[in-house]
């Protein structure tokens, strides 16, 4: 489908119309995405909330199954399927949207995580391009762009005179535009050209880039890892806020007679992550930090063909000691 145009006020009206028909999830405050009851509740002025939208498809807590013992009998039940409610995620940035295809590979690797893909199918992603990337953004270093389309169903790019240029990227995007066509106008070549020019401008505005080929030469044994990770406090902020990090733990909640087996987010930065009675392969925090970087930039790409990072920069922005991933990637080549 050809590109469309959406005026700023029409975006708000479109969102109110969507809310009448389905769940609409948008940046609601500085911390998170959540369901909004009216277009006025969306906080689109900020760049992006602290939490990424990954919890929409990969909730922090997910019930995997339920068990109940009755006498000698054990009954296992699948959890109720994730609500097959269609929802529109609006106001993600291209980096957050690009994260979805990256982790799709993992959740579909051989054994398919049904609940994850059910949520994915029912989520239409309407992203808004970044006209002001911030100083911690580095999407262009990992194959992304402030106006990139990867992972989005529709991409709204704010043009100079106040309209959004709308790229229709997928079937889901197309069907949304068709259903709500009354809000959209046609765009023309001038708009398309302007969009492309703006994208170039915004890409150039990204202050600090890093050459990912450096990580190819990363020396596992290099003493620089220890120095880079010295200040790291081993919290889970970088992992939990990251749109692509997906490590989890499985625990039983309840008692022997009934309860739920749940999946909860976990982080390779935590000491407990690989600790067993038999041993602890990463007892000191520089080893955990090294594992995190190598997994995201070397091991995951070797298995899945994609870097496990979209350059959103949250790990830099929210790190209690401001460890800068870009500096790390430059420093670790052998």
């Amino acid at each position, binding site marked *: 489908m050809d590109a469309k145009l959406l005026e700023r006020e029409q975006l708000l009206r479109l969102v109110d119309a969507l809310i009448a028909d389905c769940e609409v999830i948008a940046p609601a405050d500085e911390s998170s995405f959540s369901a909004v009851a009216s277009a006025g509740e969306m906080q689109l002025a900020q760049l992006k909330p602290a939490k990424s939208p990954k919890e929409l498809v990969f909730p922090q807590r997910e019930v995997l199954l339920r068990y109940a013992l009755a006498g000698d009998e054990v009954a296992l039940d699948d959890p109720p399927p994730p609500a097959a409610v269609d929802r529109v995620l609006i106001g993600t940035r291209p980096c957050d949207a690009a994260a979805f295809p990256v982790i799709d590979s993992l959740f579909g690797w051989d054994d398919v995580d049904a609940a994850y893909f059910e949520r994915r199918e029912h989520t239409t992603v309407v992203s808004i391009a970044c006209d002001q990337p911030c100083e911690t953004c580095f999407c262009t270093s990992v194959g992304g762009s402030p106006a990139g389309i990867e992972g989005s169903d529709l991409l709204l790019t704010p043009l100079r005179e106040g309209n959004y240029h709308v790229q229709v990227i997928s079937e889901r995007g197309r069907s949304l535009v068709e259903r709500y066509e009354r809000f959209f106008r046609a765009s023309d070549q001038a708009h398309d050209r302007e969009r492309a020019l703006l994208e170039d401008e915004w890409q150039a505005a990204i202050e600090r880039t890093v050459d990912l080929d450096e990580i190819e030469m990363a020396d596992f044994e290099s003493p620089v890892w220890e120095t880079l990770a010295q200040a790291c406090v081993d919290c889970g902020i970088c992992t939990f806020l990251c749109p692509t990090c997906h490590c989890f733990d499985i*625990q039983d909640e309840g008692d022997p007679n009934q309860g739920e087996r749940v999946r909860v987010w976990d982080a390779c930065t935590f000491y*407990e992550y690989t600790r067993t009675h038999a041993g602890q392969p990463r007892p000191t925090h520089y080893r955990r930090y090294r594992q995190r970087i190598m997994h995201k930039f070397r091991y995951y790409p070797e298995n899945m063909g994609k870097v496990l990072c979209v350059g959103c920069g949250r790990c830099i922005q929210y790190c209690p000691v401001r460890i800068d991933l870009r500096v790390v990637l430059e420093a670790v080549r052998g």
Partner: protein
Amino acid sequence: MEAITENIRREARRLLQEEAVDVVIGYQPGWDGVQPVPVFVDQAAEVDKLVYNERCTHNLAKYLVGREGYLTSRFRPSDQIVRVALVALPATLRAIVALLREYQFDRADLILLGIVDGTPVGIEPDVEVGRIAADTAKEEQIRAQTEELDGMSLAERREWWREQFSKCIRCYACRQVCPFCYCEQCIADENQPQWIERSPSLWNNMGWNLIRAYHLTGRCSGCGECDRVCPVEIPLRLINSRMLDEVEAAFGFVPGRDPDAEPALAAFQPGDTAGFIR
């Protein structure tokens, strides 16, 4: 500010050159050139990395303790002593007093390059590298917010805090930046039994946050780092400062002031208030 930076560098250079310490823990300009971050300098030639400005807030005492702490590490032979010089903010000095009282390390293991602000503290830095003004603005803010909460009914206040704790994502950054959270097996990580479930439900989050608040009661140095680092902006400092007020009111004890005073919740005095026993 520049004077303090100069003092720190001078002392660090001297201590490293004289081999009086193995490492100087201080602050360096962050990689964005703006927000200072912790640095660990072990070469005299590198002391120019050290800086001090009003944006230095990390409580560097955190790096002394715990499983990988410079003074308590599990991963060094116990006869291998690391001598540390520490750039210590007022809150860090208070933390050191309390940590010494908890027998975490010896005073002799540490050289304190202290930055003082006139508030009472129960330790003399080895070198006073700077004097700054006490952060009354921060105190004011905390007082104002606390008054607002006190003005709410119990039900309103409970609802307010429940809303805060529902945001918690259990990243444990609050724990990890805190010098007092040095337990090698945190109660939150214990699974026999799993005292606090890992799921971020309101109930579990309250369990985590309130247990941590209790474990800090009578110990917290008021650095505010937990509050600063929380990615979902839970106002943790309101809880900890309130507990400090409560301990002072009940026991006349303020952690960090008197190196000889028994920590209020670690010792029983016959005169201790027992009004809660009904």
